[in-house]
């Protein structure tokens, strides 16, 4: 799967900050896919996991990262969400680029507060430079937000929400037992 040219991380980051983030996620830009993942590199996964934990933060119940958001997205990018690969590549690169430029750190290393602030700017379309042209920050944020919600609140069979953790959090029994609910009240 990982055919094509490899480029070093530094070149890659340069490209990314220049806004040339149109490389496909499987075009060889990622150094390797760890076992169990299909599309996302370790860096991609680290970044997405950090975003997922801001979108659905951990508390007494798991956060987005622990509850399978990354594995859900990785799996869907090799399935029905194949059409979003380009957007993920562009958006993740633009995020890293913005964070390095503004904070000299990757998103994953920022404080939760700074992470939340940056995501809020993306949500409102406040980021416009580099890879964010044409309202992309808003579109990208909304895409990741909705995919994270699908992962967290959807069926475990798609890679997220192991053991229906979110169902348990919401107090919905799973699996539902046919007919049982008729006799409950």
């Amino acid at each position, binding site marked *: 799967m990982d055919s094509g040219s490899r480029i070093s991380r530094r070149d890659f980051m340069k490209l990314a900050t220049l806004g040339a983030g149109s490389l496909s996620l499987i075009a060889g830009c990622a150094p390797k896919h760890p076992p169990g993942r299909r599309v996302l590199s370790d860096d991609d996964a680290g970044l997405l996991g950090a975003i997922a934990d801001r979108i659905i933060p951990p508390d007494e119940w798991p956060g987005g990262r622990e509850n399978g958001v990354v594995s859900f997205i990785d799996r869907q990018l090799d399935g029905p969400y194949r059409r979003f690969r380009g957007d993920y590549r562009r958006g993740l690169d633009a995020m890293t680029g913005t964070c390095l430029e503004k904070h000299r750190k990757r998103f994953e290393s920022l404080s939760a507060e700074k992470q939340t602030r940056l995501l809020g700017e993306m*949500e409102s379309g406040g980021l416009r430079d580099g890879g964010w042209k044409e309202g992309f920050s808003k579109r990208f944020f909304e895409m990741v937000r909705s995919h994270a919600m699908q992962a967290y609140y959807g069926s475990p069979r798609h890679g997220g929400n192991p053991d229906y953790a979110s169902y348990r959090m919401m107090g919905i029994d799973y699996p539902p037992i046919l007919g049982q609910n008729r006799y*409950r009240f």
Partner: protein
Amino acid sequence: MKNTHVNAVVVGAGAGGGVVAKELSTAGLSVVLFERGDWVSFEDHDNDELLSQRTTVLGNAFGPDDDRYRRVLVSEDGSTGIVYPSDGAYSNVAACVGSGTVSYGAMAWRYMAEDFRMKSTYGPVGGSTLEDWPVSYDDLEHCYEKAEWEIGVAGDSSLNPFAAPRKKPYPMPPFSYNREASMLESAMKRMGLHPFPIPMLRNSVPYAGRPACARRRTCCGFACPVNAKCGTHNTVIPAALSTGNCELRTRCVVGGLIIDASGRITGVEYFDGDNTKQEQTADIIVVAASATETPRLLLNSTSKHFPSGVGNRYDWVGRNLQGHAYTGAFGLFEEDIFDDVGPGATLAVSDFSHHNPGIVGGGILANEFTRLPYLFSNIRPPGSPMWGEEHKEFQRKYFRRNIQVVGPIQEMPFFDSRVQVDPSVRDSWGIPVVRLSGRRHPKDAEGCEFLSGKAEMILKEAGASRTWRHVPGSGLSGGQHQAGTCRMGDDPHTSVTDRFGRVHDTPNVFVSDASLHVTNGGFNPALTIMALGYRVGEYIAGEWQKGNRFK
């Protein structure tokens, strides 16, 4: 090998097509029923929210698929883009034996007498092609009755003073209210409204050899695990097949009608399951492919006799695409309400269906089908965060403490909301695809404002601590309640078919699906589509038995 000639071809094994196939085959006609999809069951797609017919983010569980199907959408600003079946803008129903009737919420409404006489009742509406139907409620009453008894409806209309008169009660007793419905019932009664159990195409008791409903949270958008939901796939289609006169050909995509040198329509061209092109000739062709696919099929069928498509001499095929402006309100409560008694929707009021001051038509209001966790994650009061701690807290606090009251607003038909065929984009069989364009009539927004306001008042009366309304935008309608694109009428200049669904200018081509609807009522449409199926089927069978061969 050439296919044997048959008396009738029916294109589409959905709500309308399934009924027609049964009527014709039981009357002794030989029938081939074409369906582009396949048989489906709960085993193929169970209770997976993300891959259902309601939330389609990972695809439509009951078809069509994103690989072979596409459409072109013309946006309000004039730009065009390709849309896929999993996109809402595609305007999908389903693609399988039974179509939407496998996975529908199964509300089983009769329209009211006014719904067939909208122009006479309210007068003309500027900018709208609002018109009376060429048939009345009384003409359709026995067809509704047949649909209710042959397909199966549970209900009790005696509690609804606005219900149109009926000769026979429902065959099954109504469903009991779930807890939220009981709360709403007392609130509505205090307000002087007339709540009643929603009539449902689901078995409340064992009926027609199938068991009673187990009341699950995954019903609307899903197939039924116990076969208690009544669609065409488990009633009229098996009845048609058991006559020995009807052959169902699944995974067969009909591309167009065959027109001979004299201008007579002699059959259909189709691609079979191996994508091989074949022909099927017939004396009669009934197109029942849904309000988006039926016009596509007619428009794709051209010859020197029909230069712009069959039935399209006056440019009415594909016009007046309607659906329902679904509108209502949410309410939050400070106590647990959710009792997990499916399918959620159990009670309605019809007080706002007609004769509302300043509004043309109206709609029923009902409590909504269970909102599953992902769908619920998108439901928040205006201004609330859509992510972060607060969003998560809301999800666990209010999932069991919210009620949604919604209803379908009768839309004003709009000539420029339409289905065309795209000049360049084709599906994977090379057939030109549907091109959708248009918007809602401005009057619809007034209806939504009105009905959502009523929904909000009901929720407040029921004790909601916070309420907010939701109304759809002004964009093109259609979707799961799509209708109106081959309207029936007595004047061939302003309609596509006559009062029996026969396409003007042809002796032997009929339409029998939601395309026929002149207006779409303030009710979910399936039972009316089925009733029209009985009307069209009865007419063809009756004429056939009199010796009419539709030459």
